[in-house]
């Protein structure tokens, strides 16, 4: 009975963490996963009972069952396999460390066996103490962790943690009373937890770097777009100048014609002539959106695409020529939001996009992008948006948030009465 309780107490937290971490993630079937996991825990308890009666080695049984558990998550979760494996080892290590400390403490302080009620109790206490921070860490870091596809990195860290864990498990055994009491057992477990923390911190650092790189790439893309637009703008203006030159050249000719029609005293022919003349006059077709050349060029680029897609566009910019923020950052923010707005529109009836930006009197930059959206977007509990194109959070909205944070500002995404609103505020 003692062993069964011990096994149960050391098993349940792994599933609690797993479900807490992955609850909002795309599942093949979350209900099925819940049922299977419950079944798995029951079966495991029963198997442990049988093993105790038959004298089988519980360690082998535990190992087999944890593999089955892993298989359930791998089959039913729609995340990167390597990421799931990494989390599996991470959670397993956490359990091993807690179990190790509990058995060591109970053996050392109470001289009780490794799977006694005392060690179960210590285990429970340790979980109660450590689970809240672990869970909050999981929740807060998910956005960074799953935002980018970094399969190779996940695999590398998974193998690293796995080999460390294997070594620890090979040389220490929580079910063996003689090994549990030794100091080397305790230090091995403490060492393992230090390694996990270190590996996890490294992983976060690496992902942060990847994220920054993605933002930089995004900036490069937007700047490429600006360049492209400016090139076509230049071609446009050259053609317009050419047309103007021709019109000026023709002006004397027209003056002569008008004079002769006037002299002939036939106003209807003069009117007709004037009509054709006015129709031929070159007119400025270029539309400008704002005085800042970079944002203007970017806006023209997207305006062309948005109009081509049959979406109505309203743009209201109140911005001076020079802005007190790095232009590449502003371009990434505007480009990303327009991109998202445009992608949300196809298939909608009479879609529209409204862009408004201004610099407030206190020199803060405020941007609002609205688009028609009959249904609310998928959102996580923490408010981050889930991508419509892939699993996990949206990259565009993620980098907009990141940039806003870097400038000490904020980005907000909201859905209200059929309109999706993205707003960004950067303090001056």
């Amino acid at each position, binding site marked *: 009975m003692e062993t069964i309780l011990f096994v149960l107490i050391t098993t349940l937290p792994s599933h609690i963490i797993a479900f807490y971490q992955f609850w909002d993630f795309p599942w093949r079937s979350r209900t099925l996963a819940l049922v299977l996991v419950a079944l798995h825990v029951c079966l495991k308890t029963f198997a442990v009972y049988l093993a105790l009666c038959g004298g089988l080695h519980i360690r082998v049984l535990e190992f087999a069952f944890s593999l089955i558990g892993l298989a359930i998550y791998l089959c039913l979760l729609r995340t990167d396999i390597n990421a799931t494996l990494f989390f599996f080892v991470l959670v397993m290590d956490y359990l091993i460390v807690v179990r190790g400390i509990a058995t060591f403490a109970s053996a050392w302080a109470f001289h009780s066996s490794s799977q006694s009620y005392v060690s179960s109790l210590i285990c429970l206490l340790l979980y109660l103490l450590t689970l809240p921070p672990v869970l909050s860490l999981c929740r807060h870091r998910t956005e960074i962790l799953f935002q980018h596809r970094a399969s190779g990195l996940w695999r590398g860290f998974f193998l690293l943690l796995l080999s460390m864990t294997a070594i620890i498990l090979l040389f220490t055994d929580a079910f063996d009373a003689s090994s549990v009491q030794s100091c080397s057992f305790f230090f091995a477990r403490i060492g393992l937890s230090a390694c996990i923390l270190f590996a996890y911190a490294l992983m976060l650092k690496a992902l942060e770097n990847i994220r920054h790189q993605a933002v930089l790439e995004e900036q490069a893309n937007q700047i490429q777009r600006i360049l492209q637009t400016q090139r076509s703008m230049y071609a446009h203006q050259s053609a317009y100048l050419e047309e103007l030159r021709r019109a000026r050249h023709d002006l004397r000719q027209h003056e002569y014609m008008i004079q002769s029609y006037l002299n002939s005293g036939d106003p209807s022919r003069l009117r007709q002539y004037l009509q054709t003349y006015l129709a031929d006059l070159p007119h*400025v077709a270029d539309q400008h959106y704002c*005085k800042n050349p970079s944002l203007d060029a970017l806006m023209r680029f997207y305006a062309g695409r948005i109009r081509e897609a049959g979406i109505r566009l309203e743009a209201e*910019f*109140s911005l001076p020529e020079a802005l007190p923020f790095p232009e590449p950052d502003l371009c990434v923010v505007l480009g990303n939001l327009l991109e998202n707005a445009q992608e949300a529109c196809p298939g909608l009836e009479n879609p529209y996009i409204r862009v*408004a930006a201004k610099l407030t*009197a206190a020199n*803060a930059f*405020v*941007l609002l992008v609205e688009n028609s959206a009959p249904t609310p977007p998928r959102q996580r509990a923490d408010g981050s948006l889930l991508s419509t194109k892939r699993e996990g959070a949206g990259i565009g909205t993620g980098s907009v948030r990141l940039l806003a944070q870097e400038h000490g500002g904020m980005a907000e995404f909201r859905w209200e009465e059929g309109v999706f609103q993205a707003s960004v505020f950067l303090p001056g």
Partner: protein
Amino acid sequence: MEGWAIQASNRIAIVDDCLQDREALSVLVRTRAQQRGLCWELESFASGEALLRSSSAQTYDLIFLDILMPGLDGLETARRLRASDSVALLVFVTTEADFALEGYEVEAAGFLLKAPNIDPARFARLMGRLERRMGSERALDLSPYGIPLHLPLGNVLYAEVLGHRMLLHTQAGAHSLRLPLEELKPRLDHRFFECHRGILINLDKVVKLDGDTVTLVGGDTLPVSRRRRKALMEAYAAHSVEQLKRGG
């Protein structure tokens, strides 16, 4: 007790040198007023000079200004309106696809493209936003407290408590009132924020946010208490975004 003086009707002006365009826009505005059951006083002017000459130039809540006009163009008219302290919502009407890029100088509330025709859906959305803003320009009326003071909330810069009195600062000067700040608070709206104990500022009038101080139009610099710094920044952000949503 009626603290708000809600204006019975809004005054709207259309300034355009082209008679047909003036008429077209008038029809749209009148139809809108009828549909929404709103009481609007509408007047048309053929030039910016005519508007500025009229004795009622400062009383309009909303002015549609054609940009390209002989004599004073729309922008110059707007600048002069602003110089004469008009707080009207300004909408620029233009034939060219080229928007009035200088609009930010005079705090334009929107743009309308009149060529080839004004898009009714766009007009409806613009008006929807402007109506909310016109309706929301409230007045502060302290006559229930026996204080003969009645002024638009937009004119208030900030209020501060000094001893047993409250100083209500406006662009035109300060009023010293015998009124607790707590009584004033419910008569103000979302644009006011208490950045320090006993100091209520109008977020519209902020020209500088500097961590532990905030500077308002007119140059007065006020302290921001340490624990309200973050909240002030958030309130300012939310207020700025809200203004954009309403088209300002």
